């Protein structure tokens, strides 16, 4: 970190006052500089690269991001050795900058629906690429608009008159030397978005654009010179990459929420408002119960998601080892779980960031708070790498499958093993959770049980509703669709259980007594707050009584008061540098008002004392009236 902080070339600029074109240019400059510096300092360890990048770019978005991740990754994993020899050195040397062009204007999640075609011409041994309709224009890939000169394009492969499905091709899009688009290529920026101003998300349209046969990525599937198609062996392995990317998003959910909480909690301890006690000075707004109720559950959530992120990363690394040894047993569950957790954490963090912003009153709305930026940068993760509702339904599919296994007498393992308990209950007419349970609302372990019961009840209810629909209708898909609201609820309950479980498990690993005490309170708050927000589920399933629900509400309020004294320390522990936080309201030193004034003076509207609009519009009008 110090390396970057002390380097004058990385001096942090405030992007808030720049136009999109300017922000793009700053981002490119930083990326280019960063690449040079990494070489110069010889930094090669992936973790070090990560920290270095984080410091260089701050919270800034990187137009070269897809080049380093998806483009390079695809070349490494899907190229033959010959292809690797040709492309990888150019990629590492950044002589070619690539992007990954999959999504089309009219097609996202449903990959089979993509329309771009690659037709093999054996006469010239070339593929002819076409965007046959408006809807088939590649749309959204990052770095495509202005930065990249190459793209990996996903297209429907046609050879010998037959469609062989989606395949990946290396396509040059801009002229070396001039950077002009090549003939047959139409490429550009898709225009302003909700955030991501620095990123040139782009469009790409191809008209009879020819590339040599060798530009198809041929590690798995192949097209022979005569046009013969050779099928790939298995495609289950792509699960691994997806799990990895989703685990990154879970980590990002935690980090973004941590940043937002840091800003809101520090500001709330500096801002004074109204009076609690007549005659006394205005109190810190963090002393208001309503303010604590907005922020502390989010703080607890931030810590909870931090655990989940760490767990996902660890599990991914463990399972990668297994996969390399050919053991794919755990992969389906992890794949299903990662989908749901990605959706669960990103939805929650998304709403939480906005809550933090609104908890900062009017000033939260100013870009100087940094919160609008955190929000717009984070919120697309609810959609990219798998739309959240679709993700929840993927998890649901796995849950229903596991439920069906249990119903047919098999045992299931892993996070869904609680479904095994259902088998003993099945003969009884009443609901699973109707058995007597004594939930202890001060015991995290007991709360994990409560969440488990809720999940199993909702999974069972969804599975039964699905079964009922199936007996009434012919189509599987139709029945599934008519149950999907129930299924999403079941997935959410499952994910919620997993998060409470992981957070609780984390407590036992803390040795420091004081830290343990405060983390226990956070963990309890997380679990109890979640119950208070879903009391209906717990009441309806008979997991909690009315009296217990009232106790839960009461306990939540007591915990708010208990956490209050440590609130600032708990966000300081996230250890964000002021540059990285990018917020006047969230400054470590709390000197917000002077710095807001300094910041505002830089506004483009303040460049001249009298704005040109006065001369152009106001003065003439006043003369006329």
């Amino acid at each position: 970190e110090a390396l970057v902080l002390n380097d004058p070339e990385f001096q942090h600029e405030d992007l808030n006052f720049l136009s999109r074109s300017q922000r793009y240019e700053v981002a490119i400059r930083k990326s280019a500089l960063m690449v040079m510096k990494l070489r110069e300092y010889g930094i090669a360890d992936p973790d070090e690269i990560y920290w270095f990048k984080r410091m260089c770019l701050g919270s800034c978005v990187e137009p070269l991001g897809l080049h380093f991740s998806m483009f390079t990754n695809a070349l490494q994993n899907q190229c033959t050795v010959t292809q690797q020899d040709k492309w990888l050195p150019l990629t590492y040397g950044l002589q070619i900058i690539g992007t990954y062009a999959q999504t089309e204007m009219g097609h996202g999640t449903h990959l089979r629906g993509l329309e771009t075609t690659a037709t093999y011409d054996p006469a010239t041994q070339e593929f002819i690429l076409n965007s046959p309709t408006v809807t088939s224009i590649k749309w959204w890939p990052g770095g495509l608009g202005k930065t990249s000169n190459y793209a990996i394009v996903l297209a429907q492969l046609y050879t010998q008159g037959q469609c062989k499905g989606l395949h990946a091709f290396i396509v040059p899009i801009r002229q070396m030397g001039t950077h002009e688009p090549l003939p047959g290529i139409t490429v550009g920026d898709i225009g302003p978005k909700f955030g991501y101003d620095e990123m040139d998300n782009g469009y790409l349209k191809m008209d009879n654009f020819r590339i040599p046969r060798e530009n198809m990525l041929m590690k798995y599937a192949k097209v022979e010179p005569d046009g013969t198609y050779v099928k790939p062996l298995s495609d289950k392995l792509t699960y691994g990459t997806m799990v990895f990317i989703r685990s990154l998003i879970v980590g990002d959910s935690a980090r973004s929420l941590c940043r937002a909480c840091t800003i809101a909690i520090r500001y709330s301890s500096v801002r004074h408002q109204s009076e609690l006690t007549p005659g006394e000075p205005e109190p810190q707004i963090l002393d208001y119960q309503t303010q604590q109720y907005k922020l502390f559950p989010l703080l607890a959530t931030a810590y909870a998601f931090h655990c989940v992120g760490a767990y996902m990363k660890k599990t991914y690394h463990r399972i990668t080892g297994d996969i390399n040894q050919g053991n794919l047993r755990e992969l389906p569950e992890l794949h299903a779980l990662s989908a749901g957790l990605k959706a669960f954490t990103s939805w929650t963090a998304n709403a939480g960031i906005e809550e933090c912003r609104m908890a900062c009153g009017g000033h939260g709305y100013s870009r100087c708070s940094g919160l609008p930026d955190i929000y717009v940068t984070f919120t697309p993760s609810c959609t990219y790498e798998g739309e959240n509702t679709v993700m929840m339904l993927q998890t649901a599919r796995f849950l229903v499958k596991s439920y069906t296994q249990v119903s047919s007498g098999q045992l299931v393992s892993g996070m869904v093993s609680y479904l095994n308990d259902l088998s003993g209950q099945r003969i009884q007419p009443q609901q699973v959770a109707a058995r007597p349970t004594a939930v202890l609302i001060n015991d995290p372990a007991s709360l994990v049980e409560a969440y488990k019961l809720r999940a199993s009840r909702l999974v069972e209810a969804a599975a039964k509703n699905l079964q009922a629909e199936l007996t009434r209708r012919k189509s599987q898909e139709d029945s599934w669709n008519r149950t999907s609201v129930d299924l999403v609820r079941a997935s959410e309950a499952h994910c919620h259980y997993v998060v409470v479980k992981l957070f609780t498990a984390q407590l036992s690993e803390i040795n420091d007594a004081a830290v343990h005490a405060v983390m226990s309170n956070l963990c309890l708050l997380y679990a109890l707050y979640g119950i208070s927000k879903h009391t209906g589920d717990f009441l309806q399933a008979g997991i909690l009584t009315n009296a217990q629900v009232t106790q839960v509400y009461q306990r939540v309020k007591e915990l708010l008061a208990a956490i209050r004294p440590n609130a600032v320390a708990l966000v300081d522990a996230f250890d964000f540098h002021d540059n990285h936080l990018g917020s006047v309201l969230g400054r470590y030193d709390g000197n917000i008002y002077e710095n807001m004034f300094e910041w505002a003076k830089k506004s483009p509207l303040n460049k001249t004392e009298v704005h040109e609009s006065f001369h152009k519009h106001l003065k003439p009008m006043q003369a006329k009236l």
Partner: protein
Amino acid sequence: MAQWNRSGYFRSSVSRDVNPDLEAERRTASFSVERLTAVLDGGADNTRTRRAMEAVIHRDPVFSREKQYFQSQNERYEAAVRKAVRLKEKMLQRGWTENRPETKYFYRALGGDVAFNVHRVFKNSILALGTDEQIAKWIPLAEKYHIIGTYAQTELGHGTFLRGLETTATFDTSTQEFTLNTPRISAMKWWPGDLGRSATHAVVFAQLYVKGECYGLHPFIVQIRSLRDHLPAPGVTVGDIGPKMNFEHIDNGYLMLQSVTIPRENMLGRFSQVLPDGTYMKRGSDKINYLTMIVTRVEMLWVEVIPALQKACTIAVRYSVVRRQSKLNPGEAEAKILDYQTQQQKLLPLLATAYALHFMNAYVNKFYSKGYTEIREGNFDSLPELHALTSGLKAIITDYCTAGAEVCLRACGGHGYSALSGLPFLYTKVAASCTYEGDNTVLFLQTARYLVKCLAAVHAGQPTPPSVAYLSLTNSRKCWVRTEADLLKPDIYAEAYRRRASRLLSTAAAKLQALIQSGAEEYVAWNRCTVQLVQAAKAHCQYIIVKNFIDTVEKLTNEAEIQKIMKHLCDLFALHGIFSNTGDFLHDGYISGDQMDLVTASYLDLLAVIRSDAVPLVDAFDFTDENLNSALGSYDGHVYQRLYEWAQKSPTNQQVSQAYESYLKPLFQGALSKL
């Protein structure tokens, strides 16, 4: 490919060339869209007037929003000033005053995207707080824009809590002047609109000091810029507060005053005055002050907040029948995404909410007009109820609309994030409404305070105003619902909402009472109950909205088809509210677990019923394409063509960036030889 090269930017409202997917939706409407529009407008005459006003705006290129999404803060500010000036010209030409319905439709058509809105607040505050002489002096100047005013209340360190404001105005008997000062940085005026670049004058709220004694907050007219060259007046530091999440067309400003003197006559003196010898005089009640706040809240809901949700629904619903994704049945074409239950569950309850809020707002306007007349005549009886009602409704309606606009944004997949969808603009703008004109949590607590008082009155056997009369009804123990059909009876769900509101309020009030009796100071007890009190106030507002929706539907007897679909929407709104807050309704056993399963089933069935009328229901909001300004939501549904054409206009595609020459080219060197 014929549709490919459409060059017209907006032509869809009159175009016959409609995307067949969208056309099919319109053919099966169960009611007349035109008649529903008339119902929403409060009569076909109003619809005609509104459309005529919109046409005036859309014909004039000055009001074009074509470049809006590509403009910088400076450009947007300039456009807003240009529009305000043109609007003034139009009004003068036609002789319209601010209060004419035509003018209101103008503002609505512009969606508030015009400068000098706070100039109107400036005028209103002089009208409400000034003496007749002050009104005669300042209002004509303001009317003609010879001066532009702003309303400077909020400070950098102080918002809602007015007594905490720090700006001072000290009277000097020897010069007969007030001296205004900003004693420290947290006392700088911060946020007032039109202040940063435009305003020449401001109504400044400051603590009044005479002969060493503080008399509390009072309003003063202060000149802040020269009328000659627009430079700041001596002692005045003024500027723009910088970029925000949206509202970049407004120059929200800061203002620092260092020994700025103004004549004694510049203190607005309808309710209090300082005499030449320094005697402070108070006269009459300044409760009318509340009225300014109420006016502003009622207006913003109608002009900006509720339309934001209606527009977001229009865009998302239209896009959802044009966008196809995956297959519902093997062998068929990809399904419209609105056919997925999960998509219906996101959008259709919002559509019902948009209607519920529209009708609620119509009621509030009526209630408010009646109260306004009484209050102006000196009868303040309805003021507390009006204040409590508008506070709570402002909070819940802005909450609903903000959350709803965001759901619409995310319901449009990736394209929702494109500025060209119009949704980021709608969302970031409406999101501000949760904090301006009163932070929502504070407003809910104001309503709660009123409710607690009313409950005490009920217990004491005193009469209560109509909107809270329900608190005195006795509660039945169990809900008697046995079938899904029972749940479609308005009496049933109205009663469930009523009971819930009543129970949450009683519980909170009892807790408050218990804490006070156990010796806690009242303000400590209050703070410890605020989470519950907010919940109670929300439940109260939700009950009022449901009840009003039911009453509105009942009155639609002349429009059988419209009444039918509105009844479905009302049912959906009510059942969705129960479905989303099951705990509140299950808590005391009023609704049983089995009954709750019926609620869920009934709610899900309604989604499918409303699905078939979804597009006609958004069409009835009758927003022009120019007003929506969305590539995804246009009437003709040519989503993809428009996205592609609009993207070409982005400055990033038209201006040359230095990024390639300066930074990328050096990286690419040497590749030519290897490829």
